[in-house]
Each structure stands twice: as structure tokens, then as C-alpha cells.
């Protein structure tokens, strides 16, 4: 297969919030291409609902230091504190930047950006909930994605839409480019670049009940992992408390920020027992565990007793229509439930990867525990691990993360490119991708990727979800080995050259299997509970042994784990109570 050749200074992979924010910076400084497997406006940033926190103090007293504290505490002290400080300080400018670009934030009576409460965000270091989230109804992510896309249209950014990046090219310790597969034609393209920025989002599709889009298969982290980049903190995956029952579609925490209450089958507002101070606005990991505790103890609702209710029926109908229109429509459309009159059946849903490609605060990808930088390689957003979210991300901090670190990635990638030349591409740069695709397409019969993926998802929900044990995780490791064997014989039925999504689904499954393995091995090894990682056989946090980031590296004999310290500045770990 011969590949088309392209040369750019900066190549950005992915066009969600992080990629588009990076592109705005990079494309005004350097010759930049954005390569994206979806049309940019299809990216999952658009599904984010509740808001973006920044201590503007528009409606009540607030400051970015409190925001930093909340982020670190919410992340159960696995957050790199220097990175959290940067994010929370730069949040304020990031919100104003978006507003200046045209972002239609909701407004206060005096025309400023309105703010609302959100889980885990407090004033005076946990004294009570604070109104910090800047929002546009319950479609804040949609508006950020549209705004950033609009600005890229204005700037004439070069996009390669529906191109799948399937390999990272390295020359020694530097990035040299990427290899992409063009969906429309099935052709391969080699992009030579001085800087490569991964902004490919999450990988929630390794779970069955998930808020994540079908496209979220971890291609960026998967590509990097196969080229020797370790994956940081993969055991930390966030299960959002309020997914639509059975579907996993997200119902924003904004519902609780506006006064919504979780109730069990008896109608009891059970969060009062788990987090007496901030109740329903406790961080997501705690609320998800509380929901499962209610279900396990027999207080779940429904014929199978396997869900609880999100109740907004007591809110002013006008507030619901003005501030929560989309999520109430989801309940109507998909469950046939009228939220103005009755509770909405919900269950926790796999939502967000705290872990990913390890980077420093300048979005530079690092190769090891000593933070050795890989020249010209950058990552930002959910696919990256800075780490600003630690063991559990606070609501709204993902939209913040993508704009703050997306911007840093774009600037730094362009500045790096200005100071260096292109490096030589390796021999036969598209060879590895060609062999992978031929291997996947080479079976005339067998099992479909969908069947293997379906089994992966069901098992990951059962064995690597909200509650984990040594036994379950070991079972999952064995199962992954068998899924991998099945995958080696996967059948791609579609033999077309163009628009072969059958082939791409098989490719994507390969990334999911790789990343699931890093998650499970990292989770089995971490014998403590922290944030989103809860071990029933080790229910306490263990700072003495485990206040450290994991790094999972691919070897011929499986996943090898390494660890690096958490960067501490001024916040001493303390017990996490709300």
C-alpha cells in the first residue's frame, strides 16, 4: 500500500475542545494540520453539559485558590498540585477568552457571566457549596465546541476530516509524524511533522453502561502505548452517578447543582447520610458508591431494584426549561419519563478517564518516572494525564482542562516546531499500519469485532467498575487474554476500500483491549482505595504506600508497572469528608 505524503510543522490529532483550542494557537504560529476521525463538531466535547468552573466571583465570593484546593481534595490527593494551581488560576482568563470568541454564556441580571453550584466545588476549603460553574444552559460543551470550531473556520485552520490516526512515528527520542487512514478512500497518509499533539479524548467504550460516544475508543493513547509511551494512572476511571437507566446517557450534575435530589425506592434523600454537609453535591466517586450501596442494601427502585431516582420535580418548571432543557428531554425521549412530575431512573455510568498519556504542565509527553520529555510530542484533554484530576475529576474541570491545556499544547507545539527541523522518517513509515490492517482484514470468516467488544464491555462493567476486588480483577485479566485470542482471529466482513467502518471498528477494538489491560493490571496492583478506584478488599486510602502515580508500560511479557511521585506544593493529604 503506497501512502500519500504530507509535511506540516504541527499535526494535531483530534478536534474536540482540546484539539480545536490547540489548533487556534498553533495555526496562527506554524503550518498546522488537524487530523480528526469525526467531523470536528461531532466530537464528544459537545455532549458536556453542566459548565466550566472558574473563580470569577461574579455572584458570590470566590477565589482560584479555593478552586485549587477543591480540585486536589476532589482528586483524593493524587493531583499534581502545581498543575492544579495552573489550571485553576488560568481558568479565569480561559473563560474570558471563550466569551470574547463569542461563547454564549448564561448571564446575571447585570449582564455578567452567570455561575452555578457544582459537585465538590466549595468556598472556604469545604465550608459549603459555591457558585463557580460558568454555563450555557445544559449544553455548555456544545457551545464551547461550536465556538472553538467557529473560530477555527474564521482562522482558516486546515482540517483532515474523517482521517483515523493509526500510528505515531518516532525517530529516536523525538516525534517525527503520524500515519493516518482516510475513511473515504481507505488510503494511508504519512504526515511528517515537527510537533505532534494528541487530543483524542477518552476510552469509555471499554464499558457497557457509559456516557461515552461510540467514537471514544482510546485511539490516541493506544497508538502512543504501542510505541512505548507509558500510560499514567489508568486504574482511575470515573463513574458518573447519574446516567439514564440502562442507556448510560449523561444527566448532568447541573440537575443537582440547581437543586435536584437523589432518592431511593423509599423516596429518601439518601445522600444526607453519606455527605452531611454538601449532600447531593458530593464528588462523583462518593455519590456513585452511595448509589450502589443503596441498591445492594435493597433500597434500589424498579422491578430489579437496580436504580435510584434523580428528582427535579420540586424545581420551578421555568428553571427546568431555562437551565436544564436538554437533560429533561433525554428523560422524556429515551425513558418516557416526565421529570417535572416524577423521578428519573438513573444508575452510575462510565464517564471519564482520569488516566492517559503522561504529560508535564506544558503538555509535553513524558516517557518515564523521571519525566524525560519526548521531543515534539504533546497531549491534552481527556487522553492526557497532567495530572489535574488525580483519582477523581471534579465536575466541570474537564471543560476547563481542555481549554487551558489545549491552549498550552498549541502554543508549545508551535514554538517547539519553530526551533527545530524535521527529523528523518523511519524506513517504510506506513509499514506497521499496512501490516495491521492486512492482518485484521485477512480472515474470510470468524467472529465479528462487535461480539468480542460486547463481551469486553459486559465483563469490564462487572469486574472493573465501581467496586473492585483482587478476585474480580484477576478474572478480568484472564478474560482479557481470551478476548485477545479471539481478536487475533477477528472477521471483518466488509471488503470495500471506501468507508469501511467495519474494518475501523476492528482497529478500535484493538486499542480498547490494550487500554483495558493497562486499567485492569494497574487496578489489581493498587491495593488501596482512592477516588474512582475502590477496592472492597482494601477499602482505605493508603498514603504511606500508594500516594504515587502508576505508569503502565507495554512489554513482550505483558504490562509492566512503574511509579512516580505526586507533585505536592502546599496541600497536605487529609481525610476526604464532605
Amino acid at each position: 500500500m503506497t501512502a500519500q505524503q504530507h509535511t506540516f510543522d504541527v499535526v494535531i490529532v483530534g478536534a474536540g475542545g482540546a484539539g480545536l483550542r490547540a489548533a487556534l494557537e498553533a495555526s496562527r504560529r506554524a503550518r498546522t494540520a488537524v487530523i480528526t476521525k469525526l467531523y470536528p463538531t461531532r466530537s464528544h466535547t459537545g455532549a458536556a453539559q453542566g459548565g466550566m468552573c472558574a473563580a470569577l466571583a461574579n455572584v458570590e465570593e470566590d477565589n482560584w485558590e479555593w478552586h485549587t484546593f477543591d480540585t486536589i481534595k476532589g482528586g483524593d490527593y493524587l493531583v499534581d498540585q502545581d498543575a492544579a494551581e495552573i489550571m485553576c488560576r488560568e481558568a479565569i482568563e480561559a473563560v474570558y477568552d471563550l466569551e470574547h470568541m463569542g461563547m454564549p454564556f448564561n448571564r446575571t441580571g447585570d449582564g455578567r457571566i452567570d455561575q452555578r453550584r457544582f459537585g465538590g466545588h466549595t468556598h472556604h476549603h469545604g465550608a459549603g457549596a459555591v457558585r463557580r460553574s460558568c454555563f450555557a444552559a445544559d449544553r455548555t460543551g456544545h457551545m464551547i465546541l461550536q465556538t472553538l470550531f467557529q473560530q477555527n473556520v474564521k482562522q482558516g485552520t486546515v482540517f483532515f476530516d474523517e482521517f483515523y490516526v493509526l500510528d505515531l512515528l518516532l525517530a529516536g527520542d523525538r516525534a517525527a509524524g503520524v500515519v493516518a487512514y482516510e475513511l473515504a478512500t481507505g488510503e494511508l497518509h504519512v504526515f511528517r511533522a515537527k510537533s505532534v499533539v494528541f487530543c483524542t479524548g477518552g476510552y469509555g467504550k471499554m464499558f457497557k453502561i457509559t456516557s461515552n460516544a461510540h467514537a471514544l475508543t482510546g485511539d490516541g493513547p493506544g497508538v502512543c502505548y504501542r510505541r512505548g509511551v507509558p500510560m499514567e494512572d489508568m486504574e482511575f476511571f470515573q463513574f458518573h452517578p447519574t446516567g439514564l437507566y440502562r442507556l448510560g446517557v449523561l444527566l448532568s450534575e447541573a440537575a443537582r447543582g440547581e437543586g435536584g435530589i437523589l432518592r431511593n425506592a423509599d423516596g429518601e434523600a439518601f445522600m444526607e447520610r453519606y455527605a452531611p454537609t454538601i449532600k447531593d453535591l458530593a464528588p462523583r466517586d462518593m455519590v456513585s458508591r452511595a448509589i450502589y450501596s443503596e441498591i445492594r442494601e435493597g433500597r434500589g427502585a424498579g422491578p430489579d431494584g437496580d436504580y435510584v431516582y434523580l428528582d427535579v420535580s420540586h424545581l420551578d418548571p421555568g428553571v427546568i426549561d431555562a437551565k436544564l432543557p436538554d437533560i429533561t428531554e433525554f428523560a422524556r425521549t429515551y425513558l418516557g419519563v416526565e421529570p417535572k412530575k416524577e423521578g428519573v431512573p438513573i444508575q452510575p455510568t462510565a464517564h471519564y478517564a482520569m488516566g492517559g498519556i503522561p504529560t508535564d504542565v506544558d503538555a509535553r509527553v513524558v516517557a518515564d518516572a523521571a519525566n524525560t520529555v519526548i521531543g515534539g510530542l504533546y497531549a491534552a484533554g481527556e487522553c492526557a494525564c497532567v495530572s489535574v484530576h488525580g483519582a477523581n475529576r471534579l465536575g466541570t474541570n474537564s471543560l476547563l482542562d481542555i481549554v487551558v491545556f489545549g491552549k498550552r499544547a498549541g502554543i508549545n507545539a508551535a514554538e517547539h516546531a519553530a526551533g527545530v527541523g524535521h527529523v528523518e522518517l523511519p524506513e517504510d513509515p506506513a509499514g506497521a499500519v499496512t501490516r495491521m490492517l492486512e492482518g485484521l482484514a485477512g480472515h474470510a470468516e470468524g467472529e465479528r469485532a462487535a461480539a468480542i467488544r460486547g463481551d469486553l464491555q459486559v465483563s469490564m462493567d462487572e469486574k472493573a467498575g465501581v467496586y473492585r476486588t483482587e478476585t474480580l480483577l484477576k478474572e478480568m485479566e484472564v478474560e482479557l487474554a481470551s478476548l485477545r485470542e479471539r481478536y487475533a482471529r477477528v472477521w471483518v466482513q466488509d471488503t470495500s476500500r471506501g468507508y469501511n467502518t467495519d474494518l475501523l471498528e476492528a482497529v478500535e477494538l484493538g486499542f480498547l483491549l490494550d487500554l483495558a489491560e493497562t486499567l485492569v493490571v494497574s487496578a489489581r496492583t493498587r491495593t488501596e482505595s482512592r477516588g474512582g478506584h475502590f477496592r472492597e478488599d482494601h477499602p482505605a486510602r493508603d498514603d504511606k504506600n500508594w500516594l504515587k502515580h502508576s505508569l503502565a508500560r507495554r512489554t513482550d511479557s505483558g504490562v509492566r508497572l512503574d511509579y512516580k511521585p505526586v507533585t505536592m506544593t502546599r496541600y497536605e493529604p487529609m481525610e476526604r469528608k464532605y
Partner: protein
Amino acid sequence: MQVTLRVRRFNPETEAESRIEAYDVPAEPMDRVLDLLHWVKWNVDGSLTFRRSCAHGVCGSDAMLINGANRLACKVLVRELGDQITVEPLRGLPVNKDLVVDMEPFFASYREVLPYLVNDDPAPDTERRQSQKERARFDDTTKCILCAACTTSCPVFWADEEYFGPAAIVNAHRFIFDSRDQGAAQRLTVLNDKEGVWRCRTTFNCTDACPRGIKVTQAIQEVKRALLFRKV
């Protein structure tokens, strides 16, 4: 229940013409049409090709012609359609394969209308002030997800693919009526073009088709009025 799902299939690598293929699909009333398409792709024919991503009506990937109306496959349920369901690609755009159409003409029209905030004044240190009333003025058209359901339901667009179409006008409206924007005159000049708003025949197909409930026809009328009176 059992649904007969008819899908208009077309593979340009092997066929000269499209054809309808029928599948018997096990389904629940609460299943999305997207679930049925996935069932076929994942159990019967892996070559069935369509776009999708979020699966809950916010990314705009899977607009299709479903039982004669433009809908998002992930936002229309079996219980609304019954056991006979026909899915075809959007009209008015070239078909690349099965339900996948070429979106480039659609995005080209979008780019024409300056779909971004125009304001060359130096930005203040904090936000530009905007009253709640000013913000509400363009709220409806900020909901657009660029799925093309409206544009490809428009008879004028079917007859003349040069017509900007409703979605581009909706995105122009979103900025023309934003109090922070200064590009209205420029945008209105573009829309006053022979392929601009005056081609609209007010058939309301676009409003019916919009999965986000945007009052598309009303937005187009407001742009026409702004052109007549050069005042927003």
C-alpha cells in the same frame, strides 16, 4: 417485537444503482433506530455503513431519512414508528455509501455566512456585558448541531444545491442577533445574494425536521426582515 427494517443500500465500488434491502430485526419499543442499524451491522452484514457517534442526539452524525422524514437515528424510537421502518440517506447530497452522504457542500454553505463572532474592538479585561434579554434573543439558534436534517428536507435545496439552505441561515441568525457581534451588515449582504434567504418558500419542512426543536423557519423570516429594514 419484530421490525422489518428496509435500508437503501449503495456501494459505488460494486453497484451502479442503489437498492432497498430488508432485514428482520428483533426490537423493543424503546430501541432507537440506531440500535436496529447496529444490530444489522453487528449481526448480519458488517458492510452496512452509516455515521454515528454520541447516540443521544447531540453530535449530529446520524441524520437520515426515516419513514419519509429527516430524523436522527439515535433520537427516534421504534415505538414512534411501528414495525415497518425504512431508512434512506439524506436527500440532496451525493451518496458516498449506504447512508453516508457527502457533507462538504453543506459545510461549504455554512462557511460562506461568516459563522463566527465578528467584533474588532479590543476585548475588555473581563467579559463583554450582555443582558439576559440580549442573550435570549439568539438562544434558539445556538442549539444547532449541524446535522443537515433541515437543509436536506428543503425542496428549494433539492432543486438548487447552490441555495445556502436553512442550516447556514440559522448559523448566520445566531450571530446577526448577538448584541456583541458587528458583522451583521456583511452577513446580510451574503444572504441577500440570489442563492440567499429570498429563495426560502416558507414550507416549514426545516422546522419539522430539526431534532433540536429550533424554529428554523422563524429564524429565516427574522433574517429576511432584518434585510428589508437593515435593522436587527
